[in-house]
């Protein structure tokens, strides 16, 4: 929050915590109301005369981006991302699913997701996460671990590319699962 302050004392003052002096009647912007500034206001040296936007006024249209959301709100928008596919053996692949926010930062929370794939392959949960139903099938419901990670193991006996799709199910958060993952079993 930007706050505009004015020196209402009769002398030039050293503005607490701002590394500058302010002449009588001069104004400045501070990027926060620190304890020192608050003490200066209460001491009758500085007066709050404004803030960005002003109380009750509107932001310009289009001003709010995901980057401006508070952390708690940002993490309400959960995005599925996929890590690198690892070859375990000729018929087994491992791929991590990671939940992120709209800024691409990991979400440190356990959430439930549904993962489906080609019926010729089977999905199970590796080290991170917990299978809730469908372990070893093409339709798995699982919970990520507390870091938002779910390690998936994909088994397929055929030389095909298996597409994985995630999606929301019972108990899921608001989820963006647009991005899928192709897992190749071709030699």
């Amino acid at each position: 929050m930007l706050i505009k302050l004015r020196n209402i004392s009769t002398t030039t003052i050293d503005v607490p915590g701002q590394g500058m002096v302010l002449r009588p009647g001069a104004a400045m912007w501070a990027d926060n109301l620190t304890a020192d500034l608050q003490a200066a206001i209460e001491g009758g040296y500085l007066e709050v005369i404004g803030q960005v936007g002003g109380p009750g006024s509107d932001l310009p249209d289009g001003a709010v981006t995901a980057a401006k959301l508070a952390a708690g709100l940002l993490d309400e928008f959960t995005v599925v991302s996929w890590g690198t596919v690892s070859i375990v053996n000729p018929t087994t692949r491992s791929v991590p699913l990671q939940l992120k926010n709209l800024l691409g930062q990991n979400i440190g929370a356990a959430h439930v997701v549904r993962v489906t794939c080609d019926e010729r392959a089977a999905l199970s949960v590796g080290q991170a996460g917990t299978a809730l139903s469908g372990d070893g099938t093409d339709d798995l419901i699982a919970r990520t671990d507390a870091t938002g990670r779910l390690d998936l193991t994909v088994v397929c006996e055929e030389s095909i590319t298996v597409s994985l799709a995630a999606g929301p199910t019972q108990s899921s958060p608001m989820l963006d699962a647009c991005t899928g993952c192709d897992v190749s079993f071709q030699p």
Partner: protein
Amino acid sequence: MPIQDAVKPVQKVTTSELAKDFADHLAVVTWDTPGAEADNKIAVTLKLQNALGDDLAAKERIRLTCTEGATMDLAAAGDGTVLSGADSDDIIIETDEATGEFDLEVTFADAGTVTVVGGVTQGSGFVNCGESVDLTFAGV
């Protein structure tokens, strides 16, 4: 201005203040006005909008279900793709990436109202599917 006013939040954020890129993450399913019934079929276009109410040209996966007895499919030469369940009452579709639309055709041989409801499914993004569409068939 006293301190207590200054430390209040600047304001409550409204939808119109969302940046377009952010608003485009929040898709909303809307429906155009249905066409006239012909040969027990009614065409209606599903159209994506963003949170600002602007048309959203994006590929989005949506599950459509409808009243039992009716079936759904992509209209001839229509925009979009049926991923599964063609000619059934439970289909998964993909909107056209260039238009954000899916041209749906619903077939129902009886007289009555067919309700079509959208929902998120595997591979969906953030989609608000709160709006359904009712199609009235004469059954002739």
